[in-house]
């Protein structure tokens, strides 16, 4: 194809595109599919913290969680504190048995 032919061919294509200028197109949705989600209420809150077993799930950010751990034990001595610690963002899960005796959970830090 010579340079001139190339230009002519592209001019032809351009004319075709110009002719389609006013055409209305259906344009498709690129967004992923969110499957329906069954939503649940929050668990009922506690009537008091005193005497309850509250679990502290530590997930990284030691500058915050070390300070929080100290304050929880100091400021809320009537709570039975338990904890599991991960240095990663992945929490160390409570077992099903542990869940039966746990009244509440604080998770920090979520990142």
């Amino acid at each position, binding site marked *: 194809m010579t340079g001139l032919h190339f230009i002519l061919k592209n001019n032809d294509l351009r004319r075709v595109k110009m002719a*389609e*200028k006013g*055409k*209305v*197109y*259906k*344009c*498709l*949705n*690129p*967004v*992923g*599919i*969110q*499957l*329906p*989600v*069954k*939503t*649940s*209420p*929050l*668990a*009922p*809150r*506690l009537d*008091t*913290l005193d005497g309850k077993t509250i679990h502290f*799930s530590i*997930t*990284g*950010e030691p500058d*915050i*969680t*070390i*300070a*929080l751990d100290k*304050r*929880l034990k100091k*400021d*809320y001595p009537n709570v039975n504190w338990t904890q599991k610690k*991960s*240095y*990663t*963002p*992945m*929490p160390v*899960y*409570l077992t099903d048995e542990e*869940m039966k005796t*746990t*009244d*509440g*959970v*604080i*998770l*920090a*830090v*979520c*990142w």
Partner: protein
Amino acid sequence: MWGQLPYIAKLEKAGIPTVIIDLEDQHEMVKQEALAAGVPQVRYLPASRTLPGPEDVDNWIEDALEALVRPLTKKEKESGMYTPSQERVLFEGTLEEAEEFYQQTRHVPPPLDAPIAIYTDGYPIVVPTEERVREMLKGTSHKPDELITYQSDRSGRFGNVIKKGSVVRFQPRNWTATVEKVAINAVMAGCKPEHLPVVLAIAESGVGTGTTVFSNQWICVSGPIAKEIGMNSGLGMLGPGNPANSVIGRAYQLMAINLGGAIPGINRMSSIGSPINRGGLAFAECAEKLPPGWKGINEQFGFKKDESVAMVMTTEGGLNGAQFSPGGYRALQKSGHGGMARKLGVKGIPGPHNWLDWIIPDIWVGEREGPRTFIMVHEMAKHLYDIGFKSKEAVLEYIWKKSFEPLKKYRDRSWVDLTTNGWMGVERTSGKPWKELPDDYMVPVAGDEPTDNCIIVCGSDEEICFEITGGPRGMWGAAPVYSIDAWR
């Protein structure tokens, strides 16, 4: 968020009240993931990124405890079914109007505080008309309404096993997609139908993005399809110019945005972003120039030489290129002249010489510990072969053994505390707990085993080897190689 919200949702559904301490700029991500986990009203409070811990805690500790006892609001007691509308046709109009429509932005609040495109990577796209998508779908035998599923059994993160046929969840929103959805994104990226099997293989990876650090996504195609569709594995294969490389790399990013719902400043928190993700990065392995006995990526991961695969990588960290001064590398190899020869102690001795010793151990200085992906030109690979490395595995073994350093030094690195879970696990080479090892115990910096690292041969005739942080067995065990042929 690493399984935190599904865990919190499980606890709330089991009747255990919870409260989350997050960081303020992560609120939107918490809300999104809480909804996906089925407990949209979870209670959360922000910690500070800047205040010292004790001062920070003082600001919100009472509110955190109060969140466990404060009675539920009417909204927090609600249950139901969340079913978002998802129209197949997003827009009807002329091409000019559609181009403008797809370029729309939304303002993302601080710490980003700028407009971010809703459907695109910020560049203009090819409008995905019904006709163009139909044409694109000719690139695969898979039906348009087929959900994207895993085409083989594979290992996932943290040792999870993923079964063939499982539905792929696109990250970070955990959405799903059909073959048509992938084709729509491929059209937008500028792909042609013959590119679609590669894009579908990439889609199978779930197109993860990354969190707060310098996260890069890139793809290396191995096998005959690279030539068939005109991918560049030679000079400048990482740079602009080759249509197939460019649009396939871009398709990754568009899928991350649209199929995964990744939004900078909301759920894609890479602090400064990465130029590698701007437009996307895909290239091909130059299999025909591998030294004898060196396997291509396809064969390394259990596929045949005539099978095509995509290695889909998400790596944290940067690129570290070995810049050889003009002629310096050639002088080393031809006659043992120059600075490289002096450093290696081979002055005046003709090559081939082991140039790896010139870059090791500096690879791990000032950068993250962990494995590396080495991208080297064929001439340098051949020199290694001539020295005696008759396989990639032999090279990887050599590099790995050279990466050992005393535990005392290793402890001072940044991420090992995370990967060892605060040194609570077992060190792999000794089988002993980290905390029982002496300071002078030598540990590998380049991953747990040699094949955590990777070599890809491609590029030009000029001497260069560069390292990308991370290797194919990184990502906490995820296997990153996907069959392209399964998607033809």
